[in-house]
């Protein structure tokens, strides 16, 4: 089946089975490998992308479920002052260890701060709970989100 997807601001044509998860379309068809596979069942968040700005698990989003014109944004193209603040905070706090989950963590954190500029600890828990980090970098993820929020407010 042929699909036209709006990915990172450009229309991209792919020819894949209807049930193909967006994750594998991004990774195997479009070579956008920043989005990671971690579980395939929306339990770990490594595959998080933005669909019209909303954090979404691409591993459990069949390509056929996307509506025409829906905008897919991946880690390769997430931008703007919130994304810059989050990624700068991630580096300043040396958040990553193995780093494999961090694309998904960053995408969830950017979505959180766009929606909730001054998140409480509970807000952070709610927004980030779906993103597993087996290295358990959670202390720094929390700290980096708070620093990014503070920087954006300033």
């Amino acid at each position, binding site marked *: 089946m042929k699909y036209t997807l709006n990915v990172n601001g450009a229309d991209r044509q792919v020819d894949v089975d209807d049930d193909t998860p967006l994750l594998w379309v991004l990774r195997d068809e479009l070579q956008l490998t920043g989005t990671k596979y971690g579980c395939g069942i929306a339990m770990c968040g490594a595959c998080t992308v933005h669909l019209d700005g909303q954090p979404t698990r691409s591993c459990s989003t069949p390509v056929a479920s996307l509506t025409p014109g829906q905008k897919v944004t991946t880690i390769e193209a997430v931008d703007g002052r919130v994304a810059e603040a989050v990624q700068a905070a991630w580096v300043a706090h040396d958040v990553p260890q193995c*780093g494999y*989950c961090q694309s998904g963590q960053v995408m969830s954190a950017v979505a959180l701060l766009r929606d909730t500029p001054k998140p409480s600890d509970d807000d952070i828990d709610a927004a980030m709970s779906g993103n597993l980090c087996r290295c358990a970098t959670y202390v720094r993820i929390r700290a980096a989100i708070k620093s990014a929020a503070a920087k954006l407010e300033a």
Partner: protein
Amino acid sequence: MTIKQANLSRRAALKGAAGLVIALTLPLGGGKLLAQSAATGKPLAVNAYVRIGSDDIVTVIVKHLEMGQGPLTGLSTLVAEELDADWSKIRTEHAPVDATLYAGIPGIQMTGGSNAIATSYDLMRRAGATARAMLVQAAALAWKVKPEDITVSQGVLRHAASQREGRFGQFAEAASKLAVPQQVTLKDPANFQLIGKDHRTPRVDALAKSTGKAKFTLDINAPGMLTVVVAHPDRFGAKLASFDASAALKVNGVVAVKPIPSGVAVYAKGMWAAIKGRKALKITWDESGAETRGTEQMIADYRALAATPGVVAGASGDAAAAFAAGGKVIEAEYVFPYLAHAPMEPLDGYLQWDGTRALARYGCQAQTFDQGALAMTLGLAPANVEIETLIAGGSFGRRAQGNSHFALELAEAAKAIGPNTPIKLVWTREDDIRGGYYRPLFLHRMRGVVRDGQIAGWTNTLVGQSFMRGTALEPYVVVNGVDMIAVEGANNLPYDLPAFRCEAHFPSSPVSTLWWRSVGHTHAAYSRETFIDRLLIETGKDPVAGRLELMGKHPRLANVLKAVAELANWSGSEPAKGRARGVAVAESFGSYVAEIAEVSLGTNGEPKVHKVWCAVDCGVAVNPDVIRAQVEGGIGFALGHALYGEVPLEKGAPTISNFDGYRSLRIEEMPAVELVIIKSDVAPTGIGEPPVPPLAPAVANALAQLGKARPTRLPFVRMS
């Protein structure tokens, strides 16, 4: 932020920088390269541990796998310190396979046992100091001044009297033509600019990993490459009997299906087709040699074994006499489940070969073994098998295999499809959770006797599989029938008791097992530290003061216990406001750690760990912030598994498949962490594993103060 991950492959770096790269050959181990250079007459382009380009870039060749624990940053810090390099000019790459240069344990190139910093402290500092001496010499010759009048700072050489200065890159080529100094003087630690300093050596990989640019094995897309998944049996020990691939081959994108020794390999254009193809296979397994028991039966079998004499793993004093003399006998049985490592990036590997040479690219953790396994399977000489080690998305022990099972499967899959078809073999999360190589199921039977207010005797009989027997590492770790890493932390105590005895049984099972972050200490520290707490309370002693009384022969461990008690303002383990504190200590891999956990019972009945205080003595703290990160992460990793981790088996097969069944710690369950690093001038030891062992017993000891018995069967969420 100016530091960028060098994403160039080693091959690309060599190609792109051929005329610019200089040779700084080191006296240690460099002889072989020199000899090769002389024989071929070619300029020696690569030094074993550090390379400096005319563009000022200092490339550090790192012999340990970066899987999150920080060796790219840590080993670079050692080089940069002695070289007086500009940290922003540091790039890193993983070493090629060569155990004569890059051994982690004698003769074997591998990362494990928290050995990266421990085996590199002297080596990499000498590498940096040698390079510095040669640059200084080159500048001295050019400026016609004395080398001792030249100073170096942040990648710049200066001669103050003549007001001349130059960058490393200006002298790199000239330096490469000089004789390698046979002796170099290392810095007095008092003059360190980077080692032990906070915020001067940020992680070299943080930016790439925060922007999705870091390249993992899973991200490889080579022309003509096929993605491979393998169908493995459900039951451990089952083998392929027959299969029908007709439906699988009809799946759009599936190219081929081949039997291999470990199962049935599906080759496809992309991951989704491979997954769908595998689902469409009809397979009959030969289960005649398979494990048939479930976890509960195995535990019952282990319990029966523990009641019989085992092989003696450690003894002091006369334990039988100590128990015969009377007193209060306390007994406990601890059961530890099979645990999966579940690194975020599941096992994966890329291989291309043309029938005479092979290139494998993946997060290789045991290069010497894997190279041998790949070569043997493909019928090649090891010298014709290149491994390009890539950063790995976690490991926790999973990627270091004494039997190279993953490399073997990679080579078998490549061999079955034939030469000149590059493949990327990927294990799905289901393969990972169900695929074995678990932290073994263990049972510890403990007995202690308290007499006249003192602990008079202690015995421990432990039962669990040895994953060293039958592997290339057996000669290193199995001594007189005792697998020393299965009993580590159990066969000698940090507590000076009048009588002690440890016996062990190593039953076999087709269920495959492997080291798991902190190895034997994962179960030994728990049984030891919860049992000592119980005995101390029986003697009426405080858990901290009581331990310290018995730790006279273990001053570094005693010191971290004192330090953590001070950090947490320890005033006993009595609960207050619904929260209680517990303490535990453990020495592992040459490092010393004490932790205090503050715990309450959540409204859902599950333990809630609010805060963990930690004191660490790992010798010289090379990168304090990496140590802090490993302590935070190690505590989270240990806590998640203590609370929730278990791979249960029924009839020889796992009952869970993914993170829905293998519950993993999430951000809202992560405690605050406060750390004190003991100042030390002892050579550094590891930090990847040592923060793990004390956590679970510290939490259990706190729970005991909240009216819950110390859990004797892990994970804790089993407790009612």
